[in-house]
C-alpha cells in the first residue's frame, strides 16, 4: 500500500515499523541483479530460487539487489543470515544451496571465491580481498537493498537526511555543510560542489534547475550505471537536497538510453517517491516542492560535457559552448542550473546524514570522501572498486584487483577514461586524488581504470583512444575536429610502419595546440593518451619508427608469425588458418607463408605447443 508520507515524524514511524518487521535472523537469498550478473543469467537464477522456495514451501526471502561490483564473478549470491558468499552460481546449484547453506548454514566449497594467486578460499563477502580493501560508502547500499523497493531504502536509513535537513537546516546551511565536507564533483573536473551550489543560489534567475548527469560514456566505465541501478533513491535524495539548497523546483536526470535497466529502475524509483510524497508538492509537509523528469540521451559521448548536455535536454544539437556563463549562472533554458554527476549526488545524503566532519575525515587534504573506480583490463579481479581518495594505484591494482592476469607483468594503467593518461609502473605508488593524477599527466575523469599488461602496445593504445575521441568529437571547433584527424593520421603512420622521426615531432608539436585551443574538455584532454605514452614509453615509439618493430607484438603491419621447432606437426594451425597460409605434413614442421599471412593470430591461439612465434 502506498500512502503519502505526511511529515518527518511519519517517515520515522514508518522506518521504525519497517525495521521492526524485519527479522535479522530471517533466512534470505540475495541475488545480484546488476547488468553484469543479469548478463550472466542472474534473472533465471533468481527465478529458480523463487520456484524452489515456493515448491518447498520455505520461509525464505529471495531478494534481487543492485550491483555488488565484482561483476567478473557473477552471478553473485549472498545467503543470509550466515552471509555466505557464492560466485558464478548457476540454476543447477539452487537445490544444493537450499539444502546445505540455507537449511544447515554450511558453505559449499565449490561455489566459494578462491583467490587466483594464493588459491585461498573465502566464505564471507567482506573477507574476499576484492571487498576487504574497499571502503564502500556509496556501493555498500547496492548489495544490501532491493533497488525497486522504496521501503527497503527507508528501512536502511533512506530519506533520513532529507527529513532532518528540511526540518532543521536552512538552504544556506546545507550549502555550508557540503562545502565544509569538501565534496568535489565526481564527473571529472573536481569542482567544489558547495561552491557550485552557492554560485547558483546567489545567481539571479527563476526558476532554477538541478540536473543529474548520468551520461556515462567512457569505455569500460560503469560506476554511475551501477549506482543508478543499485540505489536510485540515493541519487534522488541527493537531488532533492540539492534542489532545496539552491531553490529549485524542477530537476532532470540525463541518462543514456544505452542503460535500459538504469532508466527502468530510476523511473520506478521516481514514481515511488512521487506516490509517497517525497517528490512533488509540499515534500514531507513542508513549504518545499520539487519533482524530477528523466531525459534519455541519444548516444553522443560529448553530451556528458555539461553545456552540450544542456543543449541536448533543450532539444538542440549536443554541442558544447564557451563558459562563462557557467551553468550555475545561465544553464538550462538560460536559467541558473546545478549539474552534478550521479556519484556526486549519491554522496550528498551521506554528508547530510553523518555530517561534514565525518566526511571530511575521509580522503586527502584536497580531495575528500571515497571514489568509485571501474577497474577493468588485465587484472584478476575486474569490477567496481570504491576506495578513499588518496589510495595508491598499487593498492587498487594489486590488493583489490589481485594483480595481473595469467601472471603477466604490469605495464600501465590508464585512469580517467579515453582522454586519461597511461601511467607506468613507477607511478604505482601515486596517491590518487584530483591533483596528483593531473600532475602525472593523467586525470581523475569519472573514474575509469584500465590495466594493461606487457602484451599491450602503448602506441596502439594511444591510436585506439584518439580514434575513439575523433569519432566522438562534435566537430564544432577546429583544433579538436581537424587536430584529432591529424593526430590519428600520425599514429596510424607509426603503427603501420610508415613513420619517421619527424612523425613523432609532429605529434609532439600538434598535441599541445589541441590541448590549448580546443573549446571543451573533450578536445582539451584528448591528447593525454598520446602525450603520456610518449612521456613514459618513448622507447616503444622509437622501436616502431626506427626499427619497424612492435615490441608488444600487437601492430599487425610490424609483426610476423613463424613456426619454431616446438611444432609437432599436429596440423591444427594449418586447418584453422583462414588464408591457407600454413603448409606442412603430419608430424613434420609446418611453415607460414608471410605473403599470404594476414596476421590474424589464430595459429598462435590454437597452438598447444607454443610453436608459433610472433615478432
Amino acid at each position: 500500500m502506498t500512502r503519502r508520507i505526511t511529515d518527518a515524524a511519519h517517515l520515522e514511524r514508518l522506518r521504525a515499523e519497517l525495521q521492526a518487521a524485519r527479522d535479522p535472523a530471517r533466512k534470505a537469498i540475495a541475488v545480484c541483479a546488476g547488468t553484469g550478473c543479469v548478463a550472466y543469467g542472474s534473472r533465471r537464477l533468481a527465478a529458480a530460487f523463487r520456484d524452489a522456495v515456493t515448491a518447498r514451501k520455505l520461509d525464505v526471502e529471495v531478494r534481487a539487489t543492485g550491483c555488488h561490483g565484482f561483476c567478473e564473478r557473477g552471478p553473485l549470491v549472498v545467503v543470509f543470515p550466515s552471509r555466505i558468499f557464492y560466485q558464478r552460481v548457476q540454476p543447477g546449484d539452487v537445490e544444493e544451496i537450499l539444502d546445505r547453506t540455507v537449511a544447515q548454514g554450511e558453505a559449499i566449497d565449490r561455489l566459494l571465491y578462491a583467490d587466483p594467486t594464493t588459491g585461498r578460499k573465502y566464505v564471507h563477502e567482506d573477507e574476499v580481498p576484492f571487498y576487504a580493501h574497499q571502503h564502500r560508502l556509496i556501493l555498500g547500499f547496492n548489495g544490501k537493498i532491493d533497488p525497486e523497493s522504496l521501503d527497503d531504502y527507508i528501512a536502511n536509513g533512506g530519506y533520513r537526511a532529507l527529513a532532518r535537513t528540511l526540518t532543521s537546516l536552512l538552504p544556506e546551511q546545507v550549502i555550508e555543510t557540503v562545502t565544509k565536507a569538501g565534496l568535489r564533483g565526481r564527473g571529472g573536473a573536481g569542482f567544489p560542489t558547495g561552491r557550485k551550489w552557492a554560485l547558483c543560489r546567489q545567481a539571479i534567475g527563476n526558476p532554477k534547475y538541478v540536473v543529474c548527469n548520468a551520461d556515462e560514456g567512457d569505455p569500460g566505465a560503469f560506476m554511475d550505471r551501477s549506482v543508478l541501478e543499485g540505489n536510485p533513491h540515493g541519487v534522488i535524495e541527493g537531488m532533492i537536497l540539492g534542489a532545496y539548497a539552491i531553490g529549485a523546483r524542477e530537476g532532470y536526470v540525463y541518462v543514456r538510453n544505452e542503460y535500459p535497466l538504469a532508466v527502468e529502475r530510476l523511473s520506478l524509483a521516481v514514481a515511488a517517491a512521487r506516490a509517497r510524497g517525497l517528490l512533488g508538492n509540499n515534500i514531507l509537509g513542508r513549504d518545499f516542492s520539487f519533482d524530477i523528469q528523466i531525459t534519455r540521451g541519444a548516444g553522443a559521448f560529448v553530451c556528458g560535457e555539461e553545456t552540450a548536455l544542456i543543449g541536448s535536454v533543450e532539444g538542440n544539437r549536443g554541442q558544447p559552448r564557451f563558459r562563462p556563463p557557467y551553468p550555475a549562472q545561465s544553464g538550462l533554458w538560460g536559467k541558473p542550473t546545478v549539474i552534478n554527476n550521479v556519484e556526486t549526488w549519491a554522496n550528498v545524503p551521506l554528508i547530510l546524514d553523518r555530517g561534514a566532519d565525518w566526511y571530511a575525515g575521509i580522503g586527502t587534504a584536497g580531495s575528500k570522501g571515497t571514489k568509485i573506480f571501474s577497474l577493468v583490463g588485465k587484472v584478476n579481479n575486474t569490477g567496481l572498486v570504491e576506495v578513499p581518495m588518496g589510495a595508491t594505484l598499487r593498492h587498487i591494482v594489486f590488493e583489490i584487483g589481485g594483480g595481473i592476469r595469467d601472471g603477466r607483468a604490469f605495464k600501465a594503467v590508464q585512469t580517467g577514461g579515453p582522454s586519461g593518461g597511461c601511467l607506468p609502473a613507477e607511478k604505482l605508488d601515486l596517491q590518487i586524488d584530483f591533483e596528483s593524477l593531473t600532475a602525472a599527466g593523467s586525470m581523475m575523469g569519472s573514474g575509469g581504470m584500465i590495466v594493461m599488461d606487457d602484451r599491450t602496445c602503448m602506441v596502439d593504445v594511444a591510436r585506439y583512444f584518439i580514434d575513439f575521441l575523433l569519432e566522438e568529437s562534435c566537430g564544432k571547433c577546429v583544433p579538436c575536429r581537424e587536430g584529432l584527424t591529424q593526430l590519428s593520421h600520425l599514429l596510424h603512420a607509426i603503427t603501420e610502419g610508415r613513420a619517421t622521426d619527424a612523425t613523432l615531432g609532429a605529434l609532439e608539436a600538434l598535441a599541445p595546440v589541441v590541448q590549448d585551443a580546443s573549446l571543451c574538455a573533450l578536445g582539451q584532454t584528448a591528447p593525454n593518451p598520446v602525450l603520456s605514452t610518449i612521456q613514459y614509453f618513448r622507447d616503444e615509439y622509437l622501436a616502431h619508427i626506427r626499427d619497424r618493430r612492435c615490441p608488444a607484438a600487437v601492430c599487425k603491419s610490424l609483426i610476423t608469425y613463424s613456426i619454431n621447432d616446438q611444432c609437432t606437426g599436429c596440423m591444427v594451425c594449418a586447418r584453422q588458418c583462414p588464408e591457407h597460409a600454413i603448409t606442412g605434413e603430419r608430424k613434420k614442421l609446418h611453415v607460414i607463408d608471410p605473403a599470404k599471412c594476414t596476421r590474424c593470430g589464430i595459429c598462435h591461439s590454437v597452438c598447444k605447443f607454443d610453436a608459433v612465434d610472433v615478432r
Partner: protein
Amino acid sequence: MIVNINGRDLLASPEETLLQVARRNGIAIPTLCEHAGLEPWGGCRLCVVEMTRGTAGPTRIVPSCLQPAEDGLRVETHTARILRIRAVLLDLLLARAPEARRIQELALAHGVKSTSFVPRVDPDKCILCNICVRACAAVGADALGTAGRGAAGRIALPFGDDASACVGCGACALSCPTGAIEMTDRGSERRIWGRTFQRLPCPACGAPTLTREHAAHLAGRSGLPSESFGMCERCRREQASRQFLDLVGK
C-alpha cells in the same frame, strides 16, 4: 573598467568581448567563424588570446570573441604561443580546405605556405564555421543544419536534399568566408541549394531583386505587404533621398 591589452590600458564595458575591445582600439585579431551580424560561435579558435586575471593568476588561453571584458584583465594577442596556435590551426584548415582563398591568405600571413599535414581526400572549401547555418537561422528560414558529427560533419539541407524551407535569400552564400556555397544569378533566375528561384523585378527600374519566396517570408515575419520589400537597393536609396528632399522643402 580597464582591460590591459598588449600593454595598453583600454577602457571597456562589461557587455563587450575582448575581441570588440581590441578591434575598437585598432588591434587586429584574425577570425573566421565570427560575423558582425551574428552571435559569437567560438569554433575556429583563431581569435584565441592569452589572458591573466589580476597580477598573479594563471595564464589562460581563451577565445577573444566570447570572453567578456573584466576589470583588471591582462591580455596578450600576439605572443609566440598564440601565433604558434594560429599557425597550426591554419595549417590544419589548409589540409581540409586547400582551395579556400581566405584560408590560403591567412595561412600565408602566419608563415604557412602549404599544409604540413595529410590533406583531406575529398577537399572541401567548407570549414564548418557554421556562419551559413547561423545566418539562415537569423533570417528565420532555418533551412540549413549540420549533418553528421565531428570530422564527418557537413552543412546540409534537412534529409540532405529538402530545400523547401530555403527562401533563396542568399545570406548563406554571401556570408560564407571561404566561398563554399554556390549561388548563381542569371537574369531573374537564382540557383542555390539545388533549387531555382525567380527574382522579382524592382517596381521602379525593373532590375531583379529579392526572390519571390524571400519577399513572402519577410512579409510573413513583418506583417507588411510583400510589395514593401520589392525595390532594389539603388532605387530604394533614390526614393529615400527624394522623400528627404521633399521633407526639407527643396
